[in-house]
């Protein structure tokens, strides 16, 4: 059974709240690695704002930054997202099966009630 760390899950979900950060992650998914300036180019915000988003993503463990000379390269680190997905899926299984049985039960009860004229 996977061990979930609630603090890590909160950081992951909090990082994913922001549309710009999601766009950054989606781009890194497509392009594997990008320099900070290449990453900042399509966004209508200034470089320091992009850097702040990168700080949040790095704190959440969703990206890594490595410096070579004067160039900083950013890469995606998807593991925390996998944990977040697992967390969601676990609950989805739990509730999905419960709701299937709820539906069956309510349908049986309703049919019985109608038969007895309620």
């Amino acid at each position, binding site marked *: 059974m996977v061990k979930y760390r609630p603090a890590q899950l909160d950081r992951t979900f909090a990082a994913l709240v922001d549309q710009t950060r999601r766009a950054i992650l*989606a781009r890194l998914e497509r392009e594997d690695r990008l320099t900070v300036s290449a990453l900042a180019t399509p966004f209508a915000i200034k470089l320091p704002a992009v850097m702040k988003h990168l700080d949040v993503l790095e704190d959440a463990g969703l990206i890594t930054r490595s410096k070579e000379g004067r160039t900083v390269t950013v890469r995606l680190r998807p593991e925390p997202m996998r944990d977040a997905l697992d967390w969601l899926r676990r609950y989805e299984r739990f509730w999905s099966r419960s709701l299937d049985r709820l539906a069956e039960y309510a349908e049986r009860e309703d049919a019985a009630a109608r038969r007895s004229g309620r």
Partner: protein
Amino acid sequence: MTSLTLVRRIRARPAMVFQALTSAEGIAHWWGPDGGPVLLAESDARVGGSFRVRFRTLDGSEHESTGQYLELVAGRRVVMSWQWTVGGEPDERGEVSRVVIELAPADAGTELTFTHERLKTEASRRSHEEGWAGALDKLERYFSTGT
């Protein structure tokens, strides 16, 4: 599909579905992730009242969840807090999340919309509303490429 929102069409009237959702007898019939038995079901179905459900899963382990009814509108809406007190997700013990269930008449039955919100931080609640599940889906192919 990865989402905490689930929708079901049920061939039963909303009042019957509401009763099945909130009565101890009803809960005993449906609660749990597999075919294991519900061992105990208590439900004080009024705002501020609490519920407690203990169940065994097919692997033999026992779990218990409890919570409070935060909103109840007969035949329409149930909002409850939710947490594990035994088993479940040990790492989440003591963390309170929120379940919202909406019922709407549909054809001759009911459309049930179920949402489990993780509420520890305001940020994560907002993130759910803004649809991060979709963003996660988009990144999902990463996860199929191994660990």
